[in-house]
């Protein structure tokens, strides 16, 4: 058990999988000489060389498109999108191609690529660089969408994503790279499509993922001081969505708060809440609450930005409302 940062965990997963399987290669903007905009691939260029760590022009469409083609031809590309906001420039390749090529041709070939994209707000990058549009991508069958909230999950899930024969969008949160956590030494993988209880509690079920997992855990600690014990379930994968542990927990607590960083409308919370009502209707003691981003493009101004993003205090308040 070593304590490492999220950055190190992701970096280790990439490194290990590249050592393990020479079909795995990285392409994207500034992944090579620069060492990755968020320094995730620092040292990779020198070790693996320009063949396997490929700096590309600024052209998201062909970055993901070429990754799709290389995957069809049997390689295992890991395409890096500097931020998920730029995924909109590759949207057609992601939703019309990565997600459909396998089934549309009757399963003749697979498309085993991973698209790493950095998401999230809170760094004053303005409306076009701060989005959390995870639900938008999770809407499309054929794609798998992963968004880890701890170093261990980041490492284990990224390794599983790279080994998966299906296209995976792997969403990293820009403000979590420095976060530290325990990661078992050596070879670890985590299963895709399996939610995980990250904190035990009897009073309320908090359902969340990614950065908001940390926010929810902090809120839970505050609530514990007041004798309220929240159980925190981490979705980890948004498609396929595993409701098992969520429902199981909810059947004990009968109360739930869903915490997401993105906008609420047509978001993650809406789907989780709907499924909870569908799958555990008789266990509902209070309306399920959603905590999410305010419905506005995220402003540059720090105060307004923080006001728009879900805070620990918002989670605490929501939990008290459902109790």
């Amino acid at each position: 058990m070593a304590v490492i940062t999220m950055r190190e965990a992701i970096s280790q997963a990439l490194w290990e999988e590249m050592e393990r399987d020479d079909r795995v290669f990285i392409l994207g903007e500034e992944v090579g000489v620069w060492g990755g905009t968020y320094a995730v691939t620092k040292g990779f260029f020198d070790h693996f060389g320009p063949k396997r760590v490929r700096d590309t022009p600024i052209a998201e469409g062909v970055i993901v498109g070429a990754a799709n083609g290389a995957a069809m031809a049997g390689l295992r590309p890991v395409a890096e999108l500097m931020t998920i906001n730029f995924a909109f420039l590759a949207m057609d390749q992601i939703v019309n191609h990565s997600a459909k090529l396998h089934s549309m041709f009757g399963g003749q070939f697979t498309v085993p690529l991973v698209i790493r994209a950095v998401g999230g707000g809170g760094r004053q990058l303005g409306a076009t660089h701060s989005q959390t549009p995870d639900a938008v991508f999770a809407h499309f069958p054929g794609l798998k969408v992963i968004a880890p909230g701890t170093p261990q999950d980041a490492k284990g899930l990224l390794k599983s994503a790279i080994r998966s024969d299906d296209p995976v969008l792997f969403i990293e949160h820009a403000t979590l790279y420095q976060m530290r956590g325990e990661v078992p030494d050596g070879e670890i993988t985590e299963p895709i499509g399996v939610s995980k209880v990250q904190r035990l509690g009897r009073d309320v079920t908090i359902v969340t993922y990614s950065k908001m997992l940390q926010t929810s855990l902090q809120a839970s600690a505050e609530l514990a001081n007041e004798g309220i014990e929240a159980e925190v379930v981490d979705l980890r994968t948004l498609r396929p969505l595993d409701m098992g542990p969520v429902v199981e927990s909810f059947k004990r607590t009968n109360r739930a708060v869903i915490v997401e960083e993105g906008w609420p409308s047509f978001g993650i919370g809406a789907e989780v809440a709907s499924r909870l009502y569908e799958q555990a209707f008789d266990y509902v003691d209070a309306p399920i609450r959603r905590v999410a981003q305010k419905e506005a493009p995220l402003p540059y101004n720090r105060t307004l930005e923080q006001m728009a993003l879900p805070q620990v205090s918002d989670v605490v308040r929501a939990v008290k409302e459902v109790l």
Partner: protein
Amino acid sequence: MISSGSAGLLQRRENMEASEMLRLYREMMLVRRLEEAAASLYQEGKIGGFLHLYIGQEAVGSGVVSARRPEDRVITAYRDHGIAIAAGMPARVVLAELLGKATGCSKGMGGSMHLADVSFNFWGGHAIVGAHLPLAVGMALADRYRERQAVTICFFGEGATNIGYFHEALNLAALWKLPVLWVCENNKYGMGTSVERASAVEEIRQKAEAYGIPGARVNGMDVLEVRGAAEQALEHVRREGPFLLEAITYRYRGHSMGDPERYRRSDEVRKWQEEDPIGILRKRILEEKASREAALERLETEVDEEIGEAVRFAEESPEPAPEALFEHVYAEKGA
């Protein structure tokens, strides 16, 4: 290498064996009849969705693909029936796919716009204009990555050269010197928009210069000229990197079934029909005495029979099972 000049610089191919000329003739004839059969099956309501016929453009697909080696990949857009046949796919699996049958090359999931058969190194059949150009870049990258000598041949229409994908794909192919043969089927129109109403330059070849990619224009109605150019272009790609071959051609039918064709006059179509690629080759074969009238007619009946059998096969083939809906959403089960 081929200087990036115009068609003139490419020698017309003179020395083709009679057998190969006849094979090309038969293939193009097969495509023509296949498309005619598809058109009537569409009229009968047995084919749904969009149906884009290749009639008039047969010489481009057959001329280029016949020059490839088996390890060379082929990929194109939705106007893909002729390319599929040129790639070696049997007419029956093409027609079965058009009818959405389980015996179709894509098991009835893809339809006319999504033909593919990996066993023939044919990678589709793609319906989003320009979107398969990046796929071609990726495939060529994979071959280069594995030190395979294969070339990826990517067909697209002139209308597709105005979309961003064209720019991003050609730049990256040139930057990384990837083995891609870009083949632009310039049939003058993208749906109802003529090339001069959509593109700032009318010579598509000229666009390749922005990436330092050499190119050439050829008469896409003359299969031997196309074949000769393709052979030289493929050599160039294997030796030095991407090349753009612009084939001037024409589609005799509408963009897809049900096209009102308000955008062109019928005499323009008639003019081009005098350049019929199949007629041109037939004439050449008889001139060069590569075969005799009677032999060609036998061959034509053979083709008719093959198509007739293929239609029967397609019609009698089973529908996909209901489970097929979910069978390939993910490659990994339990997902």
